[in-house]
């Protein structure tokens, strides 16, 4: 059986997409790991819906401050150059196009870049939080996720069957087996995990993938 990349490696690959000076909002799960792997020499500013720009790493045990949290309720370390603001300003930044990149988890991504990540229909109720604002407002939406669900169902689908977070918003999908970009003509397979052939990836993907001319192995 072919090996799948661990979550940390997915995060490392995503981190390569972040450019010097980018303002970045990281979602829960795999996306939250990206901050640890930003290539040296690049400074990235993290934004959180909780009302802070340019925060530090997670707080150490015993150093937690409940007035310094991220959008997941985790405690942050203060760093020099931070700023604080209220939620109307935090979301004006998002909706107004001031966030260069957001990295989000997903339940499903469609062929057109539609994103579903806020509600499992089986539960009948869900948390939308800031996901729809990020999907609609960030300049670039990158999805970081496992390629298939726990039940083996493809998460990259022709049409999202779960409630949408936003239509046509995703531009890049980084999974444990592939890097796929969303283009006008469809989904383009750009990179594969070591040992994986395009047809193996196609087998775990519902819509037809377009093969890039220069498919590479995922590099970090």
């Amino acid at each position: 059986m072919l090996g799948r990349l661990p979550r940390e490696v997915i995060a490392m690959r995503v981190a390569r997409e972040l450019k010097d000076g980018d303002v970045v909002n990281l979602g829960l799960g795999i996306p939250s790991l990206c901050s640890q792997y930003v290539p040296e020499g690049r400074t990235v500013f993290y934004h959180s819906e909780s009302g802070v720009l340019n925060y530090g790493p997670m707080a150490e045990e015993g150093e937690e401050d409940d007035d310094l949290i991220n959008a997941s309720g985790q405690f942050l370390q203060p760093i020099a150059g931070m700023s604080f603001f209220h939620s109307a300003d935090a979301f004006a930044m998002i909706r107004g196009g001031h966030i260069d990149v957001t990295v989000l988890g997903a339940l499903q991504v469609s062929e057109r870049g539609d994103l579903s990540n806020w509600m499992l229909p089986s539960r009948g109720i869900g948390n939308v939080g800031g996901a729809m604002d990020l999907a609609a407002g960030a300049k670039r939406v990158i999805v970081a996720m496992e390629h298939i669900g726990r039940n083996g169902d493809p998460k990259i689908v022709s049409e999202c069957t779960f409630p949408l977070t936003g239509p046509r918003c995703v531009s890049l999908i980084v999974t444990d087996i592939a890097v796929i970009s969303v283009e006008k003509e469809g989904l383009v397979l750009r990179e594969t995990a070591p040992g994986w052939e395009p047809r193996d990836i196609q087998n775990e993907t519902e819509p037809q993938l377009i093969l890039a001319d220069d498919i590479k192995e995922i590099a970090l």
Partner: protein
Amino acid sequence: MEKLYASFDEAVSDIFDGAVVMVSGFGGTGGTAQKLLLALRNHGAKDLTIVSNTAGLASLLGFGTLPGHTAIDVGTLIDNDQVIKVIASYPVSPSPSKINSFESYFRKGKMELELVPQGTLVERIRAGGAGIPAFFTPTGVGTQLSEGKETREFDGKQHILEHALKSDFALVKGYKADTLGNLTYKGTSQNFGAVMVRSTGISIVEVDQVVNIGEIDPHLVHTPALFVDRIVTL
């Protein structure tokens, strides 16, 4: 003119049955007016509509709560059967296996929910305080949360019309207030509170510290005094 109240109980004593109450905080204990919420629970006003980012995460899951601490949040009012409707962006537990009181009530059909994207929620509150009755936003277009809403294209992109949100009372946690009502917040705890004080009939603010007039740098005031009606501290 006197804004300083002697007790939390007194500060919430006129919250009436059926009132719309905004509750500050992102979901954790920081920025949540825990003593005012406790006073409102003891006061007992019923049939409340709560506007809040969550519907009780700290009291159940310890979201944004210091290790070893117990939290009072909107869940405290829901547990006490005081709430009939919640307007929120993050109403339930992220884990379907550990559900909060809100979700139990909701499943029994005993609770109404208006689910609103977080940025739309706070922008609607901001609009309520700024005399803007409605605005167009791109957030939520093409999703089930925009169903039935007016849609219009601007610059080639679809937007939906969203309406201002106001309330009868707001329970807000600040850090420092002077006796005029000038207010500062700490760290990430401005969040919803600093906006809610602007769009409510009566704002009630719980602070860590009340200082004399002139002790807060006028450049550092996050909430100018005119938005603050009542101040209470331990």
